């Protein structure tokens, strides 16, 4: 009887694409999803390693190639295999996946800044009419130079189009189940990602932003990724956020934490004035 491991190995060998006639040499499989399989391959022309995705259509490669942004993995090449399947080669991103990044317990400010950088390519894609539809920790990579990349655009679709159901449970907006998607679909997933990146000790406004972004009703969410990231940036800059109504004490405390020097100067002035008053009186 063959073990599961051996069976998986055999299945991998059988499924391995025939790269005959291409400039690539297969190294190993690194990921498998509903939309295709990703391998590490060696580009024999340029002598470098690339990520090679094997799939059934070139639509994904075309979508990805239309999105030139530092936060989106660039496509190098695309073509057909002898068996008719399609492939595209992209930059092999070396780094840490978002789930491993979170496990390393970065500071709250680092986590939130990383989140803002996840929003950038998504907002850019939206400006080009493309929705990712499968934002989750496994699809975000922190590169070795600190760059944040949004991966796997296999489920991406055009804005406002009725698409086939795609996404990952837990990160998928409720309306996605009906195949309805717009910018707020990704806002929902980003809200879930922010929730994932947050810890219970994070400030209330951050949790409120995550909750607003991942509201069940699309109308209750931020209308765009830009609105979401601006609200979070406001929090990072020590300003109030639209998702959270703070009490007077919280407002004063926020002002104090952002203006410590001024508060000390004013307090010293008041104390000196009070001291002079009592000194003159007595």
């Amino acid at each position, binding site marked *: 009887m063959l073990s599961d491991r051996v069976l998986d190995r055999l299945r991998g060998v059988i499924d391995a694409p025939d790269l005959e006639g291409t400039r690539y040499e297969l190294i190993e499989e690194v990921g498998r999803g509903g939309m295709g399989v990703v391998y590490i391959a060696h580009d024999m022309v340029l002598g470098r390693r690339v990520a090679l995705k094997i799939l059934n259509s070139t639509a994904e490669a075309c979508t990805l190639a239309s999105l030139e942004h530092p936060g989106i993995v660039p496509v190098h090449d695309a073509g057909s295999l002898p068996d008719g399947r399609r492939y595209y080669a992209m930059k092999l991103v070396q780094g840490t996946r978002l789930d491993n990044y979170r496990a390393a317990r970065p500071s709250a400010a680092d986590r939130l800044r990383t989140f803002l950088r996840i929003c950038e390519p998504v907002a850019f894609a939206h400006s080009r009419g493309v929705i990712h539809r499968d934002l989750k920790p496994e699809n975000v990579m922190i590169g070795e130079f600190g760059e944040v990349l949004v991966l796997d655009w296999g489920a991406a679709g055009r804005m406002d189009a009725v698409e086939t159901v795609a996404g990952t449970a837990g990160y998928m907006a409720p309306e996605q189940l009906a195949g309805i998607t717009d910018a707020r679909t990704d806002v929902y997933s980003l809200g879930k990602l922010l929730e994932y990146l947050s810890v219970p000790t994070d400030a209330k406004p951050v949790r409120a932003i995550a909750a607003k972004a991942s509201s069940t009703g699309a109308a209750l969410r931020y209308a765009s990724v830009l609105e979401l990231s601006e609200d979070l940036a406001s929090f990072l800059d020590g300003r109030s956020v639209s998702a959270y109504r703070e009490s007077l004490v919280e407002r004063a405390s926020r002002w104090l934490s952002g203006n410590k*020097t*001024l508060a000390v*100067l*004013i307090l*010293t*002035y008041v104390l*000196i*004035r009070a001291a*002079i*008053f009592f000194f*003159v009186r007595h």
Partner: protein
Amino acid sequence: MNKPVFGLLLGAVLGALDGLTAWFTPEVRPQIIGIVIGSTFKGVIAGVCIGWFAKKVKSLPLGILFGLAVGMFLAYLIAAMPQPSGKHYYFEIMLPGSLVGAIVGYATQKHSQVMPSG
């Protein structure tokens, strides 16, 4: 608003408020109008100087220090003038005056000057 103008306005407001605190000292209360006018004038001069410094030097600690020094110097000039009673109120005038200068120094450094376009 540029930094010297911002410094001038803030210096005038804080100078006036600082002068108004003389009301809490009964001995000088009858001269409060003169004190407020003098204090506002001092604030205006200090504010313009501190604002000009903030325009030239971008440093919060140096801005505060410069404000403190200017505030202290101008307050010294006022404190050195003899009162009708012949008394001098060096500490009473110089300490708060220096701090008001430091506050204006802080604010002018933090104030972002919008440059006209075109």
